[in-house]
């Protein structure tokens, strides 16, 4: 397992990659040392995932060589990578939704003859052990389908741990996790490092990079700009290298005039998911909804939008009770919902970027049922510019965009629909620092224009910066309502952590 000598574990030289004539990586040299945690940083579409996928055998480089522990290797497929001890935790969790969590945990593992019996009880035992290591309460016998994004992410992480690899690449593993899960992940990452494994960590959150990464490599536009020890660069240095300009600070102006109640839910209950949820969102108000992964925030949002309606309770829009049985009912009432799970509930993977962007506004591109290509293109271009979506062409399938750029396209879809009530579930998942600030600006503008906004986010700074008021959920119940003036990270976490676990914040990791 350990590598002899002191040379790097991975030495990539002159790596380039093109997709259909568009070069997305240019001549990248990168060394990964044994037993280090190495961050890859860069804007959306800078080439981080592409580089990660090359290491993991998903893509073949157009040019360049990779050596592993001193000897050149050809990583032709993910199976090769597995055999070489390289595991990738994908940005978009890839799983087999109909198989159980336990089965997903062992997928792709080599070994065993094809006719050997599968020991189901052993499989489940192993799964349970892994999940408790991560401190997450997921029943390993349930199917993957229906797990939240964060839980899917945890399963992916557990799968990487199970594989006993010497290089583990984590592509934005924390994007949907709350501080508690992130802390657990970090405890594990540090332990892996102590065992001499190498970890590549991709994230858009600088504070996380500071917390665990020994060195950082910064990508911009497919080129490697710099590799340096984390401590030697200030945040401003990093940002300047990433986006080539200093970042404007987002300041919540708080100018929006809070008006009448736009959305009111009372006594919303879905057994096993959430119970007796009541709150109002007023026009011009941004209400944050915080809580740990699995607290039921997404379930509440899905109930309001009619994807999985509540069993009891009522919803009123502008003071009038409404019956929302499916999303079209919600949309008819002026509600929009940006789901957290963009891969499944958001994008049309093989369809063009423009048809993805305009999917929720058919009337604007086809006033009389006939699509006006010019109008559609104009709308698409405007959004691409506004949100700085990086693409080769509007006709390109959206699946070819980087994760963050896909997310921007989905945001654009809903901003276009100009909803009265906007529910955002982890809207900035995977979005880079530069665009985030602009997105916050847009949300602020929407509120100022009298829209009601419900913001679900696992990123506490985001909740604190944007919300007028923060609701906190814990285990399916609302546990706190914190006005802006009193909102702090501590206050939110206090209400978010279940009573039994309040005393030790590393309870999850210790379990």
């Amino acid at each position, binding site marked *: 397992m350990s590598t002899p000598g002191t040379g790097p574990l991975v030495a990539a030289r002159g790596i380039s990659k093109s997709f259909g*004539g568009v070069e997305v990586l240019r001549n990248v040299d990168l060394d990964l040392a044994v037993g280090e945690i190495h961050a890859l940083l860069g804007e959306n579409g800078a080439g981080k995932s592409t580089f990660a996928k090359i290491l993991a055998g998903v893509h073949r480089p157009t040019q360049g060589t990779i050596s592993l522990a001193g000897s050149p290797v050809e990583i032709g497929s993910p199976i090769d990578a597995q055999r070489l001890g390289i595991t990738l935790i994908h940005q978009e969790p890839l799983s087999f939704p109909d198989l159980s969590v336990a089965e997903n945990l062992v997928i792709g593992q080599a070994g065993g003859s094809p006719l050997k019996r599968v020991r189901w009880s052993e499989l489940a035992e192993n799964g349970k052990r892994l999940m408790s290591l991560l401190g997450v309460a997921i029943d390993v016998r349930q199917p993957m389908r229906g797990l939240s994004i964060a839980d899917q992410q945890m399963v992916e992480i557990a799968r990487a741990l199970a594989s006993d690899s010497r290089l583990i690449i984590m592509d934005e593993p924390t994007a949907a996790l709350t501080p508690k899960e992130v802390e657990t992940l970090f405890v594990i990452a540090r332990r892996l490092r102590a065992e001499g494994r190498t970890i590549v960590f991709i994230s858009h959150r600088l504070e996380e990079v500071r917390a665990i990464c020994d060195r950082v490599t910064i990508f911009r536009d497919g080129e490697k700009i710099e590799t340096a020890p984390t401590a030697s660069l200030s945040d401003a240095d990093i940002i300047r290298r990433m986006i080539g*300009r200093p970042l404007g600070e987002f300041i919540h102006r708080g100018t929006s005039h809070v008006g009448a109640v736009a959305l009111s839910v009372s006594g919303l209950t879905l057994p096993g998911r959430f119970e007796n949820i009541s709150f109002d969102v007023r026009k011009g108000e941004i209400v944050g909804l915080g809580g740990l992964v699995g607290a039921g925030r997404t379930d509440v949002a899905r109930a309001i939008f009619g994807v999985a309606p509540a069993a009891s309770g009522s919803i009123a829009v502008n003071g009038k009770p409404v019956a929302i049985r499916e999303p079209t009912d919600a949309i008819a009432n002026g509600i929009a919902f940006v789901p957290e799970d963009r891969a499944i*509930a958001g*994008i049309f993977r093989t369809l063009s970027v423009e*048809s993805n962007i305009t*999917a929720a506004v058919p009337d604007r591109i*086809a006033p009389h*049922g*006939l699509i006006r290509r010019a109008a559609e293109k104009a709308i698409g271009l405007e959004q691409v510019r506004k949100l700085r979506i990086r693409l080769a*062409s509007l006709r390109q399938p959206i699946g070819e965009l980087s994760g963050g750029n896909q997310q921007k396209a989905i945001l654009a879809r809903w901003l276009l629909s100009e909803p009265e009530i906007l529910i955002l579930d982890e809207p900035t998942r995977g979005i880079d620092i530069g665009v985030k600030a602009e997105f916050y600006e847009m949300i602020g503008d929407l509120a100022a224009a009298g829209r009601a906004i419900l913001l679900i986010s696992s990123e506490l700074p985001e909740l604190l910066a944007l919300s007028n008021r923060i609701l906190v959920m814990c285990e399916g119940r609302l546990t706190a309502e914190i006005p802006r003036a009193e909102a702090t990270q501590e206050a939110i976490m206090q209400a978010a952590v279940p009573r039994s676990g309040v005393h030790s914040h590393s309870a999850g990791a210790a379990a």
Partner: protein
Amino acid sequence: MSASEQRQGVNQAGRESAAAKPRWKILLVRPESVTFVLLILATIVASHLSPFFADLGFILESSTYYIEFAIVALVLTLVIIAGEIDLSPAAMMALTACIFGTVLKAGAPVPLAMAASLVSGLALGAFNGFFVTVLRLPSIIVTIGTLILYRGLAQVLAGDKSIGSFPSWFVGIDYRMVGIVPVPVIIFVLASIALGLFLGITIYGRQIYQIGTSEMAAIHAGIRVRRIKMGLFLASGLVSSIAGLMTASRLGSVRYDLASGGELTMVLIVMLGGTYIFGGRGSILGTFLATWLLVIIATGMTVANIAINAQLTVMGLLLIVSIVATNWIYARSQR
């Protein structure tokens, strides 16, 4: 803000001008390209096998049997792109044609009997649609069930004997010509154009692709998924009854086993046209081309005295070749 504006401009220009995929590559991965190539090959081979093939009129005349299925296959293309399937159209053709025959035999005038057939086609489609959109059952299961049910009902209604003696003006639609083109072919071409436009330039066509690509995403985007699917099953029922009437006219009589086995021919045409059986990709042009491919191969082989069972083998092989080729090209374009 101005700095960022400027940067966007640069970024935009840089990226947009970075040449996208070359045009020929885009053309190559279009789903109907393989069909088109096969069509040309088949024409060349067939015209070597038999001099009859120089005669366009001959091909058109011999196409009328397949054209009835092909008209239904046009609608089936939409159903499949939307991520569903309908295996009952051939049975619907039979049942609605038997209803036509029965109503006619009871003394009603032809227009009334035709109306009865069309309305019953809609009703049968609605029945399929109800199970799929309201009870949310998989369409493959539902329509395998109704394929048997509808055929059974046709037998119950018409017995084992054929119902005939239609008024002479109703019989022989395949012998009515406009120039050298039989009327069914004209109907097929017009239907292809209409449905091609519907799929290509209307918002409903767009939404059909979206539903087939990801039903979950479509629901979240507020697309009326169930309404559109119901519409497609209704259309399938309606077009089946039209095709059933055309068959009745061509044969001059109806029996419960009319168009038997036709569902496979329809699915064959749609898949041969490059439409992806699990939804989200496909085109009317593909189905149109695949129809002529089928017609040319079938007539070519008949003219060359190749037995019917050998013809089936060739069709099967062809389907496999076209699927493998399409997938291969698609996969190559992705890496």
